[in-house]
């Protein structure tokens, strides 16, 4: 195989920089796997290691500091056939920590090489998340205040199935990189190196000494899970976790087609001949949003234009729920309420929320309400809904109120309402709702409800 190094772009690191070793290690690993440049994408981070993509004749993405894994993720999801290698320093590891953890959990087939030289080289030797507290850095005493992280342990805890530490100077570097690329899931290599440009002078150490430190740190070679060992059953389950992309495609393949848009045909003669505004005031759990939708569909079935605006707190299971519906003979302009023709009151929280509206309403406005609600003083005409002798559940009040609206002759007739209920609901919900409507609109029938 031929090298994938870019002969037009000679390496540009300080003499003795460990990064140079890694460049050659990556090149040999790619060759040994029989990959050609166009089968590989190198996603580089920021800092000295951010130059990596320029040295290779592969696809290359060089973006923001710490975010390399995010691009790699999107790229791998749309091109599963491409080998995606992410190169970042210990700086990128720190600023992009959330993405490292998420990548470990996700197990998408990406290989992350952390070029760990224990400082921010390019910007002048500041401390990073891996700098030992005893080191001298350009961050003065600040690194003494925090403990360095061992990324392999953090990654393993986050669910990474392949984590290994290796020295940049290790003769087996290329072979280790190959194995990490071959691993069918997220693989993280913590590659320890030396930065003569910014860190070595104040923190003299030889490669041999650093390697010794690595071994005693509990890291050392081959921390990979999932290949050897006797793991307890539950951990084993984690270790055989499916690769994210394959898993996604398998689950996506059995997802159901989404619902198409429901076409509402205009088949009834309209009752409204000008802009008509309705406000439905209720409480959480009264299906106010759906009641507004049924009213809207009903009006649409008579060829009218409709808009529906809902108002409810973030806590959807508590508090007010309000729906504002505007019906017009032309496309709706202003979606707010100027002067409501109808105020439907089904829950006290909604009524309390819009007290001002009651004070402002005059005899042109009809209020449909239930006897147990406390209504503010109003000049509007109030129609009480007694539920047609039905014992209405709280959630059925909205439908009952729409039946009373039919009796006013203002917007919907019985056919429009029934048609809208059948359009919006199916099964039990439809049956019960139709029955509530029938009972209210035909008071002579015996009150029965299933």
């Amino acid at each position: 195989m031929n090298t994938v190094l870019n002969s037009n772009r000679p390496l540009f690191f300080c003499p003795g920089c460990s990064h140079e070793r890694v460049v050659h290690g990556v090149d040999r690993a790619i060759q040994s796997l029989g990959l050609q440049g166009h089968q590989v994408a190198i996603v580089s981070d920021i800092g000295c290691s951010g130059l990596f993509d320029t040295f290779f004749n592969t696809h290359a993405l060089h973006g923001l500091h710490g975010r390399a894994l995010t691009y790699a993720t999107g790229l791998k999801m749309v091109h599963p056939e491409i080998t995606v290698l992410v190169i970042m320093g210990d700086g990128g590891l720190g600023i992009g920590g959330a993405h490292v953890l998420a990548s470990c959990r996700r197990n998408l087939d990406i290989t992350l090489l952390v070029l760990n030289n224990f400082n921010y080289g390019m910007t002048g030797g500041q401390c990073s998340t891996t700098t030992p507290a005893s080191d001298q850095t350009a961050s003065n005493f600040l690194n003494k205040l925090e403990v360095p992280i061992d990324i392999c342990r953090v990654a393993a805890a986050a669910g990474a199935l392949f984590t290994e530490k290796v020295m940049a100077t290790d003769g087996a570097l290329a072979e280790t990189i190959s194995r990490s690329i071959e691993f069918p899931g997220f693989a993280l290599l913590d590659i320890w190196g030396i930065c003569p440009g910014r860190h070595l002078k104040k923190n003299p150490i030889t490669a041999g000494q650093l390697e010794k430190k690595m071994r005693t740190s509990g890291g050392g070679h081959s921390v990979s899970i999932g290949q050897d060992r006797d793991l307890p059953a539950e951990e084993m389950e984690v270790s055989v976790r499916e690769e994210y992309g394959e898993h996604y495609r398998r689950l996506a393949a059995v997802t159901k087609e989404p619902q198409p848009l429901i076409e509402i045909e205009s088949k009834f003669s309209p009752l409204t001949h000008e802009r008509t505004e309705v406000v439905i005031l209720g409480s959480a759990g009264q299906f106010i949003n759906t009641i507004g939708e049924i009213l809207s569909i009903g009006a649409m079935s008579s060829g009218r234009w409709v808009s529906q605006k809902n108002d409810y707190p973030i806590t959807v299971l508590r508090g007010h729920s309000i729906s504002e519906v505007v019906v017009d003979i032309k496309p709706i302009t202003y979606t707010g309420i100027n002067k409501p023709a109808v105020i439907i009151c089904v829950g006290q929280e909604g009524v309390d929320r819009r007290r001002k509206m009651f004070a402002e309403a005059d005899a042109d406005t009809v209020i449909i309400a239930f006897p147990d609600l406390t209504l503010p003083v109003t000049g509007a005409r109030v129609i009480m809904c007694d539920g047609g002798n039905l014992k209405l559940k709280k959630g059925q009040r909205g439908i009952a109120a729409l039946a009373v609206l039919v009796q006013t002759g203002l917007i919907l007739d019985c056919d429009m309402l029934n048609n809208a209920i059948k359009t919006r609901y199916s099964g039990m919900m439809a049956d019960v709702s139709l029955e509530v409507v029938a009972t209210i609109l035909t008071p002579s029938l015996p009150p029965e409800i299933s």
Partner: protein
Amino acid sequence: MGSVFLDGNEAVARAAILAGCDFFAGYPITPATSIFHHMLDFLPPLGRVCMQGEDEIASIGFCLGAAAGGAKVMTATSGPGISLFSEQISFAIGAEIPIVIVDVQRLGPSTGSATKGADGDIQFLRWGNSGGLPVIVLVPVDVKDAFVLTLRAFHFAQKYRCPVFIASNKEVGMVRESVDLEVFSGLDEDKGCSCESESLKVVNPASLRTKELVRLTSSTHGVDNYITTDPQVIGDAILRMEQKLLSASGELCCMEVDANPGDSTLLVTYGVTARAAAEALISLRKQGYGVSLLVIKTLFPVAEGELKSEMKGKEKIVVVEMNRGQYVREIERLAGDIPVHFYGQMNGELITPASIVREVLQ
């Protein structure tokens, strides 16, 4: 053909699918979340990808990575998410990565009111990137617009290889309305895309399926997409990225004008406020006032020529926005000697037709 009943967020998602969106990634945020839910309903059954990022930085990052691989991508968020997107937006501009970004605006600053509408991000969308190069910002008035402009946004993103924003609003994204089914049934002229213009040509083939290598970089670069410090190369690249949009402002321009000859006042607005303005216009004309209405749907790049020609001959311009005065700055710099009156409201409520009438008559 009958009509359908849906909100602006669903319209955006349906348009994206029709435009051939291959990849969506989002992070839950009110009032944009339902776009994510719709995309999650639509994309997987089509064998396409929808992901939830660990944060907004990740979700747009996923999109940019997928776009680098040639996918048509979209993400959606609200103001707080746009803030986190900011540096990635700069990357998309500088590396010329096509992406559609939906901002369903809510009342800020910061966390603000999650369920209240506003148009407070308008200049932020334009200028919220390092370097200040132009972007495209489209703003829908209603659900139909949300659909049509999203189709157009995909087209523009591919053609100009840049971020295209849909500056929606909670009051469009989460308000349902009836729309002719016809609107959703077919593609209009926005179908497909091309990049014929030589001056716009970018080097990236935007597909990793060929042997041709794709390079994208956030560093200053020339046509070879390698980092460079050559002032000439850098300057040329910046100029090209700026001019590809500024010189196309006419083609990108989308606006609606309701004017009668001899009108003395021009009412200017955009987004959901245009709906109240339409009502205000009727009432003003009934009272005998000569008022024209200009509804701008492409906020950026500013269609300077088109806007100036609408302002010509007017005695007064009134700008109304759901913020404390953002786009009025563009109008003021184009208005010359014509006095510009501004009315803005930022309290989570819609601006009413009555208040617009009052401001015009002031």
